[in-house]
């Protein structure tokens, strides 16, 4: 299966899972694979209809679906987070990112689920 087909399949499957779980019309409007010059890589999934409350209440279940999705794309699920629209509770995107050593420090030095008010961390595996 090509990478594009994998992404198409993963987007649909995750969207269905979230709709079923939350019982609301969540839309995953775009799923992108990315590679950054610093060395980070992963996927970002732009969302509409998802709120911070949904993440907090159903975090365990959302995390499972998201982990399954990114694992199916051969992405390490060691850093999963949501991006909020600044100043609101709207979730702009959910993301899986394989952190480079430099960006790891941005998150690794901090503690808590919101290192910045627009970022909500669902999973962050600390390195030894």
């Amino acid at each position, binding site marked *: 299966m090509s990478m594009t087909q994998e992404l198409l399949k993963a987007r649909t499957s995750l969207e269905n899972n979230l709709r079923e779980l939350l019982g609301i019309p969540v839309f995953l409007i775009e799923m992108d694979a990315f*590679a*950054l*010059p*610093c*060395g980070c890589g992963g996927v970002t999934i732009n969302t509409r209809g998802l709120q911070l409350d949904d993440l907090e209440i159903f975090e365990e279940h959302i995390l499972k679906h998201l982990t399954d999705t990114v694992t199916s794309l051969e992405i390490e699920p060691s850093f999963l987070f949501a991006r909020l629209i*600044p*100043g*609101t509770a709207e979730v702009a995107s959910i993301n899986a990112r394989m952190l*480079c050593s430099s960006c790891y*420090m*941005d*998150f690794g*030095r*901090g*503690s*808590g689920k*919101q*290192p*910045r*008010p*627009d970022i909500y961390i669902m999973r962050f595996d600390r390195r030894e």
Partner: protein
Amino acid sequence: MKLYVPHVGHFEGLEELLNCSDNIYAVYMAGSPDYIGTGRTNLSAPKLDEIAEQTEYAHSKGVKMEIVLNSSCMGGQQLTPEGYRAIDWYFDKLNTIGIDSITVADPYIVEMLAKDYDMDVVVSVLSFVDTPQKAEFYEQLGATTIVVDPAVNRHFDKLEAIRDTVSCKLKLLVNEACLYQCPFRYAHFNFFSHANGPGPKPNVLDDYYYYKCLSLRIKDPQQIIKSPWIRPEDLKEYKHITDTFKIGGRTHFVNWILNNVEAYANERYDGNLMDLLDSIKDLKDTFYIPNSELDGAIEQWKKCDKVCHKCGYCKRLAEKVIYRYSGSGDEIRKIPLGPVGDRK
């Protein structure tokens, strides 16, 4: 030395910031965008009770709290009775909370704040105070402090003239790194002010000015050298102007902010200058500029008349000190920039 340090706006961030550094004199953060908004991107919209909690915490650590409400354009709303009442109500609440200072850009609001409240009135960089005359006007309107337009950070004659003209305090923004004499400056901040203000907010997909700014620097990297940032090592050259310096960057992670705090507090940074610069952080994986190789450049800038096509100093310096990254992650390589200026 008094360092004013950016804060992203939530309690956890403040706690982390203040627990990790003793070199912070004051923190500043955006207030609620429902009343005035700011001329920069906001990552949070703290409510009054959150501002109160954070202010109390900062004060318990001996750190002052500044709220930034520096929209450069409010579409005239501030002059309407409804607009005035809303702003007046908000200022009153902030005053009651015990906020130490408010940074604003609009002259009308400078005057309003100075007349009716106990909080110090800080004139924002977005008031573009770049001459002694403008500084004098703002002082007469009631400014307690003026943050001088960084466009004149390397015009020592103007800085000294401003210092000699006014008796209010001066603050210098050290790492903003906007383009020198940027053609987008007013339009960009006006756009931000509406996007981060009370509304109606523009439904804009992309920030033309920001992308254009990055693109110009990639095409012509000498623009990075010409940006009027102040290196940590060069703070001593400004101490006859002021002892108060502001670090820009309230949209960055605490880790990034702390790196800047330590660099400016120690007046030394061994690393990539790009690590310290605020507005062009997206280019930190594109260019490497060993900060130590900029030692002494300030001597040229102190006497520079800013006629670049005749001087060429920054162009030559860019060619000498800037490296371009190639590859990514562990396989990254640094390639000397070489000749610049002829790229189309």
